[in-house]
């Protein structure tokens, strides 16, 4: 039920027969998960929040970079260095206090995808790489969730709805992963194009929830911003491909999507647990612990800079460029984000990530408390 304040707030929705009070209540009781808070995720999230989608999930492991700001319109200049998921949550909550927003500031993986997807009605793919797109597609099939797809390249965008009422999936459109396709980071992208495509994704998600209009399922829209042209292509469902994903549910959690997409493991800027232990003995490194202050083990005997990833900008002056920096966290994921950030934003040259984090140190029997 909508309260009087909500009825007033959503008045222009309520005036239309196609939505009305019952439609607005549908939006209120619905939930959408947006994967990736980038160029596509930002505009999609803003419209979903404004429209009154009752529960919105945002997942992104990355931090706000200055080079994101020309298209990622949820963020402000003073938020550079903050967690994208947290910054997005805070901004969206200010935009609309009547909805619930959940932020997940970690990476979507095969291990957490199914559980996360099962908590939401509609999934929005606003990611920026093939590996995650195939993962998201397969997890949507396995959890039977409609998936709103969007993708951009320079001045051109693609939008479609997958896995909707027996419609096709991403794999029916692109069965084989593409290799050597440059990303936005490498070739650039028109900021406003992300706004157009991300907003189209929000539009499809809202129609799915409301049950109105013709859903963009079985069709791929291609938009060329330079020519102001759109092309609509029909896509057929490939039952065999979808059935195969369903049958391999058991191996989903161990499938290597990076390998499938030809992405080699990035072993640069990494340090193994054994090399780390040696460096510690020789006292040749400085350690930067990006975990939150409440996290265990506390590592009281280890001399380290302790500033959570969220506040990485505050750590810069405490880190010496003259000495090798090893960044650590619980399992090596947040520390990897920190290493990438320190290199790309602040030009640190001698900074590495402890592979596997403190968990793998403990597995080797290393005792931090002596």
């Amino acid at each position, binding site marked *: 039920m909508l309260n009087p304040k909500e009825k007033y707030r959503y008045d222009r929705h309520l005036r239309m027969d196609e939505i009305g009070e019952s439609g607005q209540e549908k939006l209120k009781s619905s939930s959408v998960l947006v994967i990736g808070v980038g*160029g596509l995720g930002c505009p999609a999230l803003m419209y979903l929040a404004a429209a009154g989608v009752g529960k919105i999930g945002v997942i992104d492991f990355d931090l706000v970079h200055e080079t994101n700001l020309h298209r990622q319109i949820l963020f402000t200049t003073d938020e550079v260095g903050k967690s994208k998921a947290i910054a997005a949550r805070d901004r969206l909550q200010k935009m609309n206090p009547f909805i619930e927003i959940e932020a997940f500031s970690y990476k979507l993986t095969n291990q957490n995808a199914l559980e996360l997807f099962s908590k939401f009605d509609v999934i929005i793919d606003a*990611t920026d790489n093939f590996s995650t797109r195939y993962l998201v597609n397969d997890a949507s099939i396995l959890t039977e969730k409609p998936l709103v797809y969007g993708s951009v390249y320079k001045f051109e965008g693609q939008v479609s709805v997958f896995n909707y009422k027996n419609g096709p999936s991403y794999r029916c*459109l692109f069965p084989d992963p593409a290799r050597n*396709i440059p990303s936005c980071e490498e070739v650039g992208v028109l900021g406003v194009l992300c706004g157009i495509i991300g907003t189209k994704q929000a539009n499809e998600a809202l129609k799915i929830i409301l049950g109105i209009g013709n859903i963009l399922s079985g069709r791929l829209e291609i938009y*060329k911003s330079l020519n102001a042209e759109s092309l609509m292509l029909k896509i057929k469902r490939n039952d065999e491909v979808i059935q195969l994903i369903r049958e391999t549910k058991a191996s989903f959690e161990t499938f290597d999507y990076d390998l499938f997409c030809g992405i080699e493991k990035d072993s640069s800027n990494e340090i193994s647990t054994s090399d780390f232990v040696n460096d510690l003995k020789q006292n040749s490194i400085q350690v930067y612990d990006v975990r939150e202050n409440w996290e265990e083990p506390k590592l009281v005997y280890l001399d380290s800079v302790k500033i959570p990833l969220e506040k990485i900008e505050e750590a810069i002056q405490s880190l010496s460029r003259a000495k090798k920096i090893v960044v650590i966290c619980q399992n090596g994921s947040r520390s990897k984000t920190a290493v990438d950030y320190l290199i790309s934003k602040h030009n640190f040259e001698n900074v590495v990530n402890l592979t596997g984090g403190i968990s793998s140190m403990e597995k080797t029997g290393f005792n931090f408390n002596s």
Partner: protein
Amino acid sequence: MILNVQYFGMIAEKVKCESEKIEFEKSISLATFKSDLIKKYPALQNANYQIAVDQELVTGNFQIDKDCEIALLPPFAGG
């Protein structure tokens, strides 16, 4: 027959044009169309793309037998 061929994304960059008309004397298979195109544009050799004929994605043994619109559609993952 005359095929109006449209190129998208990085395929357009590889062939250095967005669209062109290509004439064929007789009906051709999708496979022949692709290999002829690679002869004209060697840069397409290992390119990944889907083909739509008259706005419909086609695969396998499709036969092109009349004037039509063809689109070469590469995947891209930016976001």
